[in-house]
């Protein structure tokens, strides 16, 4: 009996020690950094702080501690450190923000697997819009303006994904090359970082060509459909949408053909721009007021969406930054939602998931104090009293 009690006590002691070892594996300072800066910044979407703090942590620890940190983050409902860091750097790059500090060897080693996974998603076609997954989408294209508009939106999102991935690949390649040249690496580390960025770029280029081929073919079809609607429909709403659609398509095709003239996308079939332009010009001539109204409506709505959902680079997205004062046109660049914006009920959504991210801007912007009191003093003279 006494021996059994001793065994139980020993097991309990062992469990306690093991538990202490596991809990104590993350150094106190790192744990504090995680709790006080990294996790709150992640939860409030302050990506620059996430990158700063995450890089600090990664560069302080190594070996099994990384796994402990990942386990701790997962227990907090957060993804692994490498994934969070890679995604945060990626998001900041996409927003054209300066990302500091520059990734070190240690950081690259834990973020590279995540980056490779992202590339795999493109190669496997996970990000491809449904319309691109069909064998020959040009045979059965969407048949209404609404359906076509939805497809063009998906293609637009995919284009942004590819552009962003390409930019990230470029940045990652530069950092990795720097590390491969200058840092001491083990064989395993060298293997982790030896990633064929050229192949990635080729994959992205090929996907882009597939997207453009489909995009141009569908635009030709939408122009045909829009012309038919203008001829046949009496609905002002349908005619307005048709006028805007064909106007937009001709502009997009024109810009693409110009790119081809400069030597890009040579493998993508050139759209029938001249024929489309001529047809649209005739339609515009016969419906000038309609085309003007369509342009007014959709341009106005475009700006409204940017005002409603756009994020600047300062004050949690509420401000654009001081550089805008010098040249207001610089303020047109805003970060917009990746997918089509959704208006969510602010009373049914958590703050960090709210869309738009502020219900009313006027409830917050008053607190941005651009003024204050500043008094300049100087000697103005002396006086002598007898």
């Amino acid at each position, binding site marked *: 009996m006494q021996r059994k009690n001793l065994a139980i006590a020993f097991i309990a002691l062992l469990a306690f020690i093991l538990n202490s070892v596991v809990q104590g594996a993350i150094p106190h300072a790192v744990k504090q950094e995680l709790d006080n800066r990294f996790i709150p910044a992640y939860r409030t979407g302050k990506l620059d702080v996430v990158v700063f703090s995450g890089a600090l942590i990664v560069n302080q620890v190594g070996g099994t501690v990384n796994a402990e940190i990942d386990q701790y983050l997962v227990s907090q409902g957060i993804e692994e450190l490498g994934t969070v860091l890679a995604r945060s750097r990626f998001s900041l790059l996409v927003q054209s923000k300066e990302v500091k500090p520059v990734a070190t060897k240690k950081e690259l080693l834990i973020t590279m697997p995540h980056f490779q996974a992202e590339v795999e998603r493109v190669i496997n076609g996970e990000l491809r819009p449904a319309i691109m997954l069909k064998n020959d989408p040009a045979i059965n294209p969407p048949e209404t303006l609404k359906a076509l508009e939805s497809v063009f939106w998906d293609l637009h999102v995919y284009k942004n994904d590819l552009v962003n991935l390409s930019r990230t690949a470029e940045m990652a390649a530069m950092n990795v090359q720097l590390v491969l040249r200058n840092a001491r690496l083990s064989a395993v580390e060298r293997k982790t970082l030896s990633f064929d960025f050229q192949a990635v770029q080729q994959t992205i280029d090929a996907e882009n060509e597939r997207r453009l081929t489909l995009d141009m073919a569908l635009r030709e079809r939408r122009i045909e459909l829009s012309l038919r609607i203008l001829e046949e429909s009496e609905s002002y709403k349908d005619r307005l949408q048709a006028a805007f659609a064909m106007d937009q398509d001709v502009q997009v095709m024109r810009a693409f053909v110009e790119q081809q003239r400069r030597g890009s996308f040579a493998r993508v079939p050139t759209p029938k721009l001249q024929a489309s332009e001529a047809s649209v010009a005739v339609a515009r001539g016969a419906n000038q007021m309609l085309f003007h109204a369509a342009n007014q409506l959709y341009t106005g709505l475009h700006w*409204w969406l940017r005002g409603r959902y756009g994020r600047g680079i*300062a004050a949690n997205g509420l401000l654009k930054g001081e550089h805008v004062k010098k040249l207001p046109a610089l303020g047109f660049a805003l970060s917009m939602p990746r997918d089509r914006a959704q208006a969510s009920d602010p009373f049914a959504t958590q703050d960090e998931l709210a869309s738009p991210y502020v219900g009313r801007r006027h409830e917050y912007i008053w607190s941005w*104090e651009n003024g204050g009191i500043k*008094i300049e003093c100087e000697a103005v003279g002396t006086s002598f009293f007898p």
Partner: protein
Amino acid sequence: MQGTVRAYLAKFDTPDPSDAYQIVGYQEYANALNHLIPLVQNANAEQLAAYDEIVSELDEFSVYINLSRRFGRLVGNSTALKYRQSLLHELPQKANDDFRRRGIGWVLALARLEHGAIEIGYQESSTPFSLNNLTAIERVPFAELLLDGVRSHYWSMSSDPVTYRLIKGEVAKVSDRTALAYGRRIVMTQHMIETLDKVAGGALNGPQRTELQAWHRELSSVREGVSYVMYRTYLAAFEQQGELVRGVRNMKLAGCPVLVNSIKRDIIAGRAQVTLKDNK
């Protein structure tokens, strides 16, 4: 014997209007309004219905309203009773009203409100909400959004300790920048109340108008506190010069243009709100 000459000369820089361009929404909503208002103004009934239908079908153009009702949960004990007794709450228009509104009128009204609020706070504009081109389709939505905005600011300030520090003139506890920011908020809210009165004053009943007037007066007393804090900050800056023979060459005071103008007038006249406080 050498004496001290105190030469006080206050010159004021005008606020920098280009600051407004830094605020997301300022240019964007202006551009939206510049396109949509002429469109709506020149539309016949069929065209207007088409615009309204197109906007209503797109989910991203929905506008949730009555956002101020969140303060029903937040107001402190001292203001809870006042909140409950208020006659200015927005009531559901139908059973299970989710307060989601759609249509071109709501889109225009929201843009007008947000853009106008930035104009009030950061620009010198005599007509921040441009009521001269208020279209019929946005009149009711605009009034609703204005009142919702007024409620949000009012209830938020009612439960904010800084408001009471300003009313009491506790200069040591409120910095000049904080005072100016709150002053901007008050100017913005008062302007919303005044605009609401112009746009939809007739739609409010007597007790509702009385309550709004009371809110306006309460906000004025906080605004006086802002002026007082600014004046004391100004005096403290002089006192810091001590026995040195110096004078003030220039005083830069920037902030909400409407507010700054009134503070300037007070300071230049050498009275500010000190007289008011001393009289209490």
